[in-house]
């Protein structure tokens, strides 16, 4: 792999290799990550055109645990505002002898675009582009699922929430399909459901109770407040009533179902505090695993 842009085109072997490599970075305690010298002397630039806390900081930590030098640029407020094009920003940074870019951008296709214009030998990791893809998030979710459930082939997975705007959901669906999940269900108000999503191999539901019934993995997506504008939803209250993940609804799933969320969570909007902090929640483990999974992707791109 030269770049890591989407989970869509990856093979089962590639996905499994990422998960296995991530596993090798995890300590015996199952959570913490040891420091290794794999990327010593390499320079990685976090290029964030859009705000992020979790993703940016776990990429930083992952790079540091691999002994790379990492520089984080929050570009939202600097160069592009001055009219510099995305490509000029890239060229300027390339001149600083960078080995790898980690890119987050509000436009779908931005990471792909940059990967087509980087010099040979430089890798691009997509840390979220518009509504298109967020492949490292999807891989840390797969890692979390595998750690809890072992294998994918018997799993029913339900994704609840704003699929229309979600790059995370798209990347999860591609990864789950390739890893062989038995059933992928998606449920959302129809205003937040992308057209023809079923063609990606998922079952589309209108009713959250039906979608959760007997499921093994529940993934809740963040609902952004802006969605009340543009007539996508009437109110947060009605959304929570219809789609909010409550203890009663979690009880419809398999007894040992896990509850996941890519963060940051809106308590009382898409998920109740009792579920977010409850026994079945693995939301904080997802964050921890994010470091090992991002280390795996970075080291594999560097040919290690």
């Amino acid at each position, binding site marked *: 792999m030269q770049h890591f842009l989407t989970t*869509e085109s990856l093979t089962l072997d590639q996905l499994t290799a990422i998960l296995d490599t991530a596993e090798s970075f995890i300590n015996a305690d199952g959570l913490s990550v040891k420091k290794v010298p794999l990327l010593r002397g390499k320079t990685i630039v976090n290029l964030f055109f859009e705000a992020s806390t979790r993703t940016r900081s776990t990429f930083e930590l992952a790079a540091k645990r691999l002994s790379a030098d990492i520089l984080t640029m929050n570009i939202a407020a600097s160069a592009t505002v001055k009219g510099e094009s*995305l490509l000029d920003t890239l060229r300027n940074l390339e001149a600083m002898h960078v080995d790898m870019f980690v890119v987050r951008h509000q*436009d779908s*296709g*931005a990471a792909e675009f940059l990967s087509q214009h980087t010099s040979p030998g430089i890798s691009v990791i997509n840390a979220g582009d*518009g509504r298109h893809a967020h492949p490292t998030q999807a891989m840390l979710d797969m890692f979390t699922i595998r750690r809890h459930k072992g294998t994918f082939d018997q799993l029913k997975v339900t994704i609840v929430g704003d699929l229309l705007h979600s*790059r995370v959901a798209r990347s999860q669906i591609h990864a789950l399909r390739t890893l062989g999940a038995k059933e992928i269900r998606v449920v959302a108000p129809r205003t937040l459901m992308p*057209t*023809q*999503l079923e063609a990606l191999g998922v079952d589309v539901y209108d009713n959250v109770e039906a979608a959760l019934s007997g499921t093994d993995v529940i993934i809740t997506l963040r609902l952004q407040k802006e969605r009340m504008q543009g007539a996508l939803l009437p109110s947060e209250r009605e959304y929570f009533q219809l789609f909010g993940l409550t203890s009663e609804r979690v009880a419809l799933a398999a007894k040992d179902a896990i509850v996941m969320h890519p963060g940051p969570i809106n308590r009382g909007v898409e998920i109740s505090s009792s579920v977010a902090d409850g026994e079945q929640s693995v939301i904080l483990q997802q964050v921890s695993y994010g470091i090992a999974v991002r280390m795996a992707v970075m080291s594999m791109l560097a040919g290690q």
Partner: protein
Amino acid sequence: MKIEILNSHICDPLNDIDRVDTIYMADAKILSIGEPPAGWQADQSIDASGLYCIPGLVDIAARLGNSGQTQQKSISSETHAAVSAGITSLVCMPDSNPVIDSAAQLEYVQQHCHSSSHCHVYVIAALTTGLKGDMLSEMAALKQAGCVGVSNVMHPLANNLVLRRAMEYASGQGLTLHYQAMDPALQANGCINEGLAATRMGLIGIPNAGETAAVGVCLALIEHTGARVHFARLSTQRAVHMLELAHSEGLNISADVAAHQLFLCDDDIPAFDPNFHLLPPLRSADDLAGLRQAISNPIFNAICSDHQPHDADAKLAPFASTKIGASALETLLPLVLRLVEEDLLSLQQAIALVTYKPAQMLNIDAGSLTPGATADLCLFDPKQEWTLQASDMHSRGKHSPFLGQRFKGKVKHTFVSGKLAYSES
């Protein structure tokens, strides 16, 4: 200068000519076909054995400037690209910078064309001031200055009342409204057809209803106002059905389609390739099939290029942020010939849609080889195969969704007003 073209296969749909014969022309006019004029002695004799001779193409939707800038240099390059592709009459759309919304601006473009153009250039003027969609342009002055129609191009109108007023006013001036149907709210900043490709790439989709809803409203207003409306750049099969029905009920309407809409759909878009960022967007495979089936319907009186040349920079960004449109003059005739190759149209039908039919709608002297008509014609080799490569394109814009594709049929010579305007080197 007296010129005779010998032995070409002449295809002139208006006059129902489809045979190998000789064309005689002099002083910028066609004199006769077959029989030489009395006392004929040619100054120049061209043997065109193996070539087809057709009237010069009429392209009813093109732009002359890079990314909308109309400059002398680009008028020269784009009209040269036109004649290299057999196009001898080109209609410039008003969405340049500045917008062609006043007689002064129209005359400015005409002056530049007069000194730099390689073919005839006509102008469709803006329907509203600055194409902003709210105030009517001075249509009477624009008509006086020579515009051949008015259009909103890719700019929606503020509301249905503006559309009604624009129709009424244009009709009163005897101007055809070239209406590009789009509902701005339903379009919602989309950049691709709403469908699986949009879902996969996470791009905002434009639903078919963005077109059909606007067509429906427009038809209702045509019934009310009796305006003469031409529906420009259709993309959905449903809209075509609506127009066919309205036409059969007697409404005075017509339509065109951009050539690329007859060959590509959204499934064909390689991941985020900005050469496929077009408006209206490439629709679904079903719409593509529907448009191809409907192209022989009399509602269609033109196939156009919708040529939009851009600098390299205009497409150097993530898909949605790139400029809309592609360079298309040089693929117009080859794509139209492909419709014949694929048995969707006869050669006469296909050539009619890029010659006399659009010329009649625009009411211009073009599109046929009738004795007395201006001697605009194109000679092409129907058998020669070639590959579209950016480096070979004559247009200053090098973006096309057909780059790398094989085409059959190559223009060899183009005459504009009886003069050789292009000859393949």
